[in-house]
């Protein structure tokens, strides 16, 4: 338990309103959007400056408390859940946009700035920050960097990592590390910022971020295509990529997802269709025209049931907004929504859909699938009830089988949500015990005492000694 003196110290350093220690406050800071995971921290702090972060970390060290950073708690792998108790360090009150540099095309923000707020602020200056995770209205930049969040525009514009130019972070030894800068090129030593991006709060606490901005596309065209068969939709995606067209967005929703989303948004999505693709091409008007023709030709060639073009920017916007609600809308159906993040090489997309269909039938589950089809990044979501242990067991077996196949195809167990708590058992299967050992050594170099977000990413014991690891995945051992 944290001592009263320590709480008093925290209050002196951070101010009374920035320290929470009552049970009702702590209970609601021990979860994120990952189902079934909830732990009670001992104290939560809301520093408003980098110095405040440092002060809180020093007190936590003194008390021997683990430190778990938290943004808005929209993570999908349990990254901000204080699984070993300790201090939750909430960064969402550090929410100032410090600078938009129009000469260097960069923006510098505190870690708690909401993603969409940054997007809007730079759009006001005629600039564009592309990463747009589904939770962009709520998620913070700090959280995006820690999880290397993707989004709907990932296909053409990349993910958060591709935009991070510099980071300021506090390390467990009390040093403040600034890495990267506004220079477009930088090969001075190891790229710490690239290590920190996607490190899920296990290496340091990020307090400031400088991101790259780009000019926005001048024009765009949005297609909505319906399919009688989900595999045909997968085929269309592979063919569009093979035709060397890179749309900014190529999103898929299956029938279950279409129906849940339509229940919420009521914009006339086709309830009877097996799948739909939301495709957007953008760029210079001439290029948009050419790519739009190409996309349309391929959709016709694979015999999409219907092809629609959005009539206005508002209509296109409402379609993207509808897609962003997919996960939450699926939660309408059953109490528990188990979401996964499997990603395959794009040529395997149609086969992946077939595999999901096969496993759904095999385990007798209800599954809604949506995702970033153009990235090969799918979110097969099992709709279940955590009170039904048999069903939960089947759901986990479903994912076990699916990941075995995904890895066999050279895919990954997480495209954009991170390992956190939810997928740590799968990590060793993908990168092997050797890979895990190197990662652990990096972790120790930054955080020798293991106080930063303990219990995440790595299974505490050597994963290869665990019974459920199958022989076939020990190859890289």
């Amino acid at each position, binding site marked *: 338990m944290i001592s009263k003196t320590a709480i008093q110290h925290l209050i002196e350093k951070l101010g009374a309103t920035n320290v929470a220690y009552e049970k009702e406050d702590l209970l609601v800071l021990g979860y994120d959007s990952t189902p079934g995971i909830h732990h009670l921290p001992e104290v939560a702090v809301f520093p408003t400056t980098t110095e405040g972060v440092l002060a809180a970390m020093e007190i936590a060290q003194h008390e021997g408390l683990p430190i778990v950073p938290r943004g808005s708690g929209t993570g999908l792998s349990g990254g901000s859940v204080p699984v070993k108790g300790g201090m939750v360090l909430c960064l969402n009150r550090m929410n100032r946009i410090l600078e938009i540099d129009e000469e260097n095309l960069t923006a510098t923000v505190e870690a708690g700035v909401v993603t969409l707020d940054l997007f809007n602020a730079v759009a006001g200056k005629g600039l564009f920050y592309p990463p747009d995770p589904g939770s962009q209205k*709520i998620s913070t930049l700090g959280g995006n960097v820690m999880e290397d969040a993707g989004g709907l525009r990932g296909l053409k514009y990349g993910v958060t990592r591709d935009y991070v130019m510099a980071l300021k972070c506090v390390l467990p030894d009390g040093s403040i590390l600034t890495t990267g800068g506004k220079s477009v090129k930088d090969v001075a030593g190891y790229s710490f910022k690239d290590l920190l991006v996607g490190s899920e709060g296990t290496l340091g606490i990020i307090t400031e971020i400088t991101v790259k901005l780009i000019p926005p596309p001048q024009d765009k065209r949005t297609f909505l295509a319906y399919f009688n068969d989900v595999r045909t939709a997968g085929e269309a995606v592979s063919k569009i990529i093979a035709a060397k067209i890179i749309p900014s967005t190529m999103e898929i929703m299956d029938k279950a997802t279409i129906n849940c989303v339509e229940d919420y948004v009521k914009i006339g999505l086709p309830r009877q269709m097996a799948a739909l693709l939301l495709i957007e091409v953008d760029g210079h008007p001439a290029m948009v025209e050419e790519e739009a023709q190409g996309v349309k030709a391929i959709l016709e060639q694979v015999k999409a049931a219907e092809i629609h073009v959005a009539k206005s920017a508002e209509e296109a916007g409402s379609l993207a907004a509808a897609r962003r609600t997919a996960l*939450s809308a699926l939660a309408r159906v059953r109490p528990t929504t188990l979401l996964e993040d499997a990603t395959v090489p794009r040529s395997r997309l149609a086969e992946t859909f077939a595999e999901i269909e096969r496993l759904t039938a095999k385990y007798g589950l209800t599954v809604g699938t949506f995702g970033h089809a153009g990235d090969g990044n799918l979110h097969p979501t099992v709709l279940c009830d955590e009170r039904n242990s048999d069903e939960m067991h089947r759901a986990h077996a479903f994912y076990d089988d699916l990941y075995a196949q995904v890895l066999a195809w050279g895919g990954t167990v997480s495209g954009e949500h991170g390992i956190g708590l939810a997928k740590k058992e799968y990590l060793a299967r993908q990168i092997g015990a050797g890979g895990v050992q190197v990662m652990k050594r990096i972790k120790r170099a930054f955080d020798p005492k293991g106080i930063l977000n303990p219990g995440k990413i790595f299974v505490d014991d050597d994963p290869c000694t665990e019974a459920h690891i199958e022989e076939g995945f020990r190859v890289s051992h």
Partner: protein
Amino acid sequence: MSHTDKLGNFTSEDAPDYGDVLQCMRCGFCLPTCPTFALTGRERSSPRGRVALARAVAEQKLEFTEAVREEAFFCLDCRACTTACPSGVRAGEVMEICRSQAHQFFPLKHVGKTFREFVLQKMLTNPDLLETSMLPARLYQKLGIQWLVRHSQLLKLGPEWVAKAEGMMPELHPPLRPQLPDVVPAVGERRGRVAFFLGCIMTLMYPEVSRQTVRVLTHQGFEVATPREQKCCGAPHLTEGDRGTTRSLAQHNLDLFMALDVDAIVTDCAGCGAALKEYEELLEEAGEHNKLAAFRGKIKDVSEFLAEQGLRTDGMQPVEKVVTYHEPCHLCHAQGVSRQPRELIKAIPGIDFRELNEASWCCGSAATFSLKYTGESQQILDRKLENIQATGAELLVTANPGCHLQLAWGLKQAGMPQKVVHITELLSMATG
């Protein structure tokens, strides 16, 4: 949840349904829409946090503590989170139920309890008593005592809410209910027959507004029947956590209105409309499903009704005004009526309509919230006033007496020129 099962640390009477709290998958889509979360930045004051607290009580991880009670009442019940929630979680309703629980866990002391019971169970259930009770307030205004009180330092002596409540009171006219004929015939070509649900606050505080509502309805071609035996809709009881009295009021109104031969039951009070539309769930256990469904189908807010029927604009007088519209939470979030009032306003000739930024963000009135949390309510109101200022409108249109009181008071305090009108007052101006 039936009344006999006990859910975790809740009492067995009026406990939340466990399924309703499990439904929340904690995506946080509600966070940017919650006015109390915007004020405090505390997760426990957000819809996601409040549902998580209820879940913790249900799962026996937490007792029904003082803090849970505090959050149940600090929630504005504005339902903005319901609109924002793709998963269909109704955090506001969960909090309403927790208010009922709060009264079981923390019974009021004797005097407070007697007063609460007197207001909720005796006064509000009895329209005659309610009307008589307003007599002193009217005399207070008429005899010039109001002027005297306002110009003395008297109001500074009481708690803050007394001064605010006094200041919010509009110019009072005699209650409308006893004056309104049972049936007012349609004017011009007859398009149907409706029943008018006249809310308590409307008849007592804004009788002249509801008079315009009836006028507009009849000029639009509808015969208006107003049954005099109608009682309070039960909304104040729901917000105060007295679900038992709500049920008996609901049953009374249900039987009364369903005995009438009308095409629709129309109200000009968003709060009443929202409560009436919830009768179906509230009386679920009584078993009259068909009757309840039919009743639910007939309840219409006046804007919803007129937009559905199509506004008759021939012969309308132009209203040369710059106008903006504040959406009452209980209209847009609780009833999903958002497009219709704008359509009606824009259909009036001469109007220059300006969209209000954050039009569906609560004004901070929220039943008794504005008196219980005067400071927080003021902060929410200031945000609204700033947005109103930016529109450059002359008239601020709304459709709910709670918002009307709060906004009119706020504008006056801030020295802003806008006049607040109910949408039917605006329609009446255009009706020759």
